[in-house]
């Protein structure tokens, strides 16, 4: 069996038919991880921890179900990984931060339980930017992830490990989180599919919070059909997450059977400005031409407030982060700084030692934006512009069924290229943050390689809770490649 070209359907068929076992599939993937992910191999460093005991127990359970002839769930034996901002009993949860080093969470994230209930085998926890803050995975306190396609380049972030591991064939699918682009951007950089479901579609119970009005969990996969399968497993109301929606879960795989002819595709002028790499522009125009050839009606649209999405995002996300990250204080979990004499000194010393530079920068910015005298000028202003950005999308979706745009302005950049300039790094998210602020769904689909051999991605955005249409368009683009 050739790893790296595996799909969910191939694994399920092979395990169900007895051609292989879930245990053998897990062992093969662990062997590949051992050979390539560490310093003795390519040092991709996509995993922070392996959960072998739990994975092999789950695989044995699956193999027993197959032996008994039980009905088999949809992800049976499928090896997956989860971003290390999600909790799983038996494995440390670090969020890529020193402040949580050694923390063993006492409960499973709901998405972990859903994956296992669907038969998936969770191989381990994936490297990411500290508290999911970053666009290159260089903010991980445990060292960067390398892009499997070009080892001198970043995999994107913040879910860099989740994207790189699927691209490298270390697992067949994975979970990431996306607050401003952290699934879609690394998917584009690593040549895999990455989906941002609608806000409220997937439970966040067990997700270490960064910015609660924006954070979402979503899947990475090697193809659109697998991403649809993953969404079907993950989506749905969870009583443990009050922000999860009771809206019925769609038949995402079934929706892929419907042809795209007749769908109206919007192409927003604001996403094709001067900063867009010419090779990416050409690849996206080719994808749009393909949709037109498949019978879609292609319309030029405008999302007029797009240029304000980044400044809006960096006020709202940092304000929410400054509140969420106040829980890391050395009292209940993780690191506590040594010999502080008072409680207050212990808080400050713990947070100084435990947080990296980017996390401190964002906590300071968010605290500043919320502080007396600046609240209206920054936080309230940003919330108002968020309304305008969302209205842009609601107006567009009264005329079109899906929007097609770039994911990133450039292909994967070199390690270290943007680490000294936070604003340059933030601008990496220029095509992804607006969908995050508006709460709509989005997906990054591979659309070819640059002349230098780097993957490129195209973004499809859909209406709130209309993942079906978004996935149909994504599949049409994938099929035309």
């Amino acid at each position: 069996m050739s790893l790296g070209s595996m799909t969910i359907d191939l694994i399920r068929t092979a395990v169900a038919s007895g051609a292989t076992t879930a245990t053998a599939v897990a062992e093969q993937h662990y062997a590949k991880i051992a050979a390539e992910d560490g310093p003795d191999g390519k040092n991709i460093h996509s995993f922070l921890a392996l959960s072998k005991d739990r994975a092999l127990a789950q695989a044995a359970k699956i193999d027993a179900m197959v032996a008994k002839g039980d009905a088999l769930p949809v992800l049976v034996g499928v090896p997956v990984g989860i971003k290390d901002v999600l909790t799983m009993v038996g494995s440390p949860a670090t969020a890529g931060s020193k402040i949580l080093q050694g923390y063993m969470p006492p409960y499973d994230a709901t998405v972990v339980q859903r994956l296992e209930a669907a038969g998936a085998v969770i191989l381990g926890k994936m490297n990411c930017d500290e508290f999911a803050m970053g666009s290159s995975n260089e903010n991980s306190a445990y060292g960067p992830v390398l892009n499997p396609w070009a080892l001198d380049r970043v995999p994107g972030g913040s879910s860099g490990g989740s994207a790189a591991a699927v691209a490298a064939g270390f697992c067949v699918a994975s979970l990431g989180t996306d607050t401003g682009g952290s699934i879609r951007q690394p998917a584009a950089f690593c040549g895999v599919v990455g989906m941002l479901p609608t806000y409220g579609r997937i439970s966040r119970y067990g997700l270490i919070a960064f910015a609660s009005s924006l954070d979402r969990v979503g899947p990475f996969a090697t193809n659109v059909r697998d991403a649809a399968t993953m969404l079907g497993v993950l989506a749905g109301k969870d009583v443990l997450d009050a922000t999860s929606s009771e809206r019925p879960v769609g038949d995402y795989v079934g929706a892929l059977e419907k042809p795209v002819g007749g769908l109206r595709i919007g192409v927003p002028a604001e996403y094709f400005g001067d900063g867009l790499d010419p090779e990416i522009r050409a690849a996206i125009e080719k994808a749009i031409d393909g949709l037109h050839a498949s019978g879609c009606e292609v319309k030029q649209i405008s999302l007029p407030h797009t240029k304000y999405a980044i400044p809006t995002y960096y006020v709202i996300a940092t304000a929410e982060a400054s509140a969420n990250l106040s829980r890391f204080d050395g009292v209940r979990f993780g690191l506590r700084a040594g010999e502080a004499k008072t409680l207050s000194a212990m808080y400050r010393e713990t947070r100084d030692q435990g947080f990296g530079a980017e996390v401190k920068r964002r906590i300071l910015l968010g605290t500043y934006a919320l502080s007396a005298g600046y609240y209206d000028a920054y936080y309230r202003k940003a919330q108002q512009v968020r309304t305008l950005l969302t209205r842009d999308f609601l107006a567009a979706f009264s005329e079109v069924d899906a929007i097609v745009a770039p994911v990133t302005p450039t292909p994967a950049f070199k390690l270290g290229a943007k680490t000294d300039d936070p604003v340059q790094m933030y601008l990496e998210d220029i095509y992804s943050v607006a969908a995050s602020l508006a709460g709509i769904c989005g997906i990054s689909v591979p659309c070819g390689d640059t002349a230098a051999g780097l993957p490129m991605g195209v973004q499809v955005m859909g209406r709130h809770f209309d993942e079906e249409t978004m996935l149909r368009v994504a599949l049409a683009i994938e099929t035309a490649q």
Partner: protein
Amino acid sequence: MANAAGVTIDEVLRVAELANLDLTSEEVPRMQRDLNAILGHIAELNELDTTGVPAMSQVGEMLGTAAELTGASLRVDAVQPSLNRAAVMASAPESDGRFFKVPKVIER
């Protein structure tokens, strides 16, 4: 925005205190520089007249549908099993098994 002159060193220190962060002497000027660069970019929001535009704090507010469909519903207020206390306390840096222990809160 409110302060065209930018964030001062004193403001960086005041915000760090509010956020319970001890910054080293090297970190303070670097954070000042970075905050001013980012706030300079954020100042672009002032180009927009947002008079009368409602502030959006949650996505569901914009969708005009029932609260439970947008994830804004409350669960039934009933007693449910909660996390195992021993498992939770085991994660604490310092605990007697029942309580979290911390350094002295009030100097006498």
